[in-house]
């Protein structure tokens, strides 16, 4: 038997009004899928967002507790030795008067300056005085 001897027929049948109802069934499935997808998305968002939010809060809390105060200019200055400070001030053009104006000197500090023993090291012999006069070109009359 040849294939061409057989009539082309569709032998399958469908239930009544099947093709009238099929678009509605498909529409219903699409609507369900869209609804479940949005629920799924929201649940997924919560699952991810909650631990991330907790981590951010934890980070802020730790940062706040561990934060050290910013060092002040005074703190930095305290780390410099007195000798370095004197050497620095010697190289600058700040006058002794300007330094004294900036200092907060109490009466006790003034008493210290009255202590003659402190001035002993400033006693110069003639040779040292002459060297100073030569260096700074000071007129002998001033002294």
């Amino acid at each position, binding site marked *: *038997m040849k*294939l061409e001897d057989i009539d082309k027929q569709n*032998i399958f049948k469908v239930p009544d009004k099947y093709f009238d109802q099929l678009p509605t069934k498909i*529409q219903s499935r699409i609507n369900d899928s869209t609804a479940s997808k949005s629920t799924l998305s929201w649940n997924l968002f919560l699952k991810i967002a909650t631990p991330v939010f907790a981590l951010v809060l934890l980070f802020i809390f730790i940062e706040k507790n561990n934060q050290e105060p910013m060092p002040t200019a005074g703190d930095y200055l305290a780390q410099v030795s007195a000798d370095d400070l004197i050497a620095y001030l010697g190289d600058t053009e700040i006058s002794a008067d300007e330094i004294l104006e900036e200092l907060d000197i109490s009466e006790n500090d003034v008493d210290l300056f009255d202590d003659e023993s402190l001035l002993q090291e400033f006693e110069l012999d003639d040779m040292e005085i002459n060297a100073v006069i030569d260096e700074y070109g000071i007129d002998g009359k001033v002294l």
Partner: protein
Amino acid sequence: MNYGFNLLVRKYQQKIYWHVRKMVIVHDDADDLVQDIFMKVWKNIGSFREDAQLYTWIYRIATNECLNFLRKKKNKFFLPIHDVQHELSEKLNNVHDIDGDEIQLRLQKALLKLPDKQRIVFNMKYFDEMKYEEIAKITDTSVGGLKANYHYAIKKIEAYLKEN
């Protein structure tokens, strides 16, 4: 589902249903598959390239879904190919929603002897009277390969009809 997609379903539902039904034989399976196919069309309509014809693209999805369904069916029950063919052949005898004479049933049983891909090509060419070029686009096969495939399918069917 918007109005445009509803029109699309109404336009193609019968062609796609019969394409699927001839492959899976049972109405309930075909019904599930057709719904799955249009769900896929709905989800992927954005990626549809306008240079391709819409019906070719939908047919392609339908063809892949049918072949996947039959492959899963074989894997699910750990059945060799001939057992699934036998199962579908038995359903041709049992299902109440088949209306054909003896020769038509014999033709359907002969078709079930073909490999799934060969059967789907035969259906598109013989029943749907599609051009080889169209089938080539759907199955991603060369026209020459399809012609050879169809030729071998006819030989096998006629041999079966002669023996039975």
